[in-house]
């Protein structure tokens, strides 16, 4: 069976209040579902790897094939938990190690 290639995305969340992990993932899944439907969302293999509530950094994992879909969906997020927010992609990488190296650079 062919191995599924993945990409890790480092995200920065800009919002007025504190956003919980659940609220963030609800917003991300909501955006993907709104744009691509439930079938499209199921192809993304989206999962949260790490989330720092205080620094507002998150790392998510998606399948390489759906990277553009997820990027477009993340860009379309304008609110999280009824608060104005923006989710910005800081870096994209094939491994978590390389992702953190990119962030440090």
């Amino acid at each position, binding site marked *: 069976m062919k191995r599924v290639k993945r990409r890790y995305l480092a995200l920065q969340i*800009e919002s007025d209040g504190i956003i919980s992990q659940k609220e963030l993932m609800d917003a991300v899944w909501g955006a993907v579902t*709104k*744009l691509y439907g439930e079938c499209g969302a199921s192809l993304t293999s989206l999962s949260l790897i790490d989330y720092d509530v205080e620094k507002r950094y998150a790392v998510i994992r998606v399948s390489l094939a759906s990277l*553009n*879909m997820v*990027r*477009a969906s*993340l*860009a*379309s997020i*304008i609110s999280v938990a009824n608060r*104005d*927010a*923006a989710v*910005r*992609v800081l870096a994209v990488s094939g491994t978590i190690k390389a992702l953190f190296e990119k962030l440090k650079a």
Partner: protein
Amino acid sequence: MKRAFADLHLRINLKDPAATLRVINKAATLGYSLVAVPFSPETHADETLQLRTACSEAGVDFVARVDIRPRTQNELLHQLRKLRRKFQVICVYCENKEVARQAAKDHRVDLLNFPLLDFRGRFFDRAEAELASSSRAAMEIDVKPLLVLEGPARTRLLSSLRREAAIAREFHVPIVVSSGVSVETLLRKPRDMAALAFLFGLDEASALETVSKNPVAIVKRNREKLSSGFVAPGIRVIKEGDDC
């Protein structure tokens, strides 16, 4: 070489200097090296000076742009004669077919913008694209409606944009993706803007060009045209005097 990104449509409220500064600084932080702000046609050149200073302090290149909404072909021609040498970018809001056709074939028009919510008022068809390709006018798409609309309205908008983007590519009409936002929370990174361009069927390279190569080329071309030494495309005065 590092790619230069541009946002040709920052709708800043010029009466609120604090908000203006916030938006410009945010654009600089997000990675834009060039921003254009629309002014009213009555604006004098010195009124743009304050904004130019703010942009240079933030480290972004500033471009003065004018948006015109003519109702007739003659009104469009009159405004173009009056404004072409005053602004670096001219955008025409095509609210009827007569204006859309004239704007597409006029070399003085840089950007064609169409009503985003009136789907019957979007006149970017094959005839329009053919005219635009010969005059080098670009089609501008604001991403703000893509962010704020939901449900059937967004679906219809995406459907129109996908059709028009395909026509534009067929006729080699450049597409410029701009933010069209007035608040910093709705500003997106250039690569995120390009990601939104995937939604209307552009591939990765073309999507990146809509926020970099295409808008930068328009500004570069117009700056050259507005410079004192410009004679004709490709010809400019490099030295003047008796010893030439």
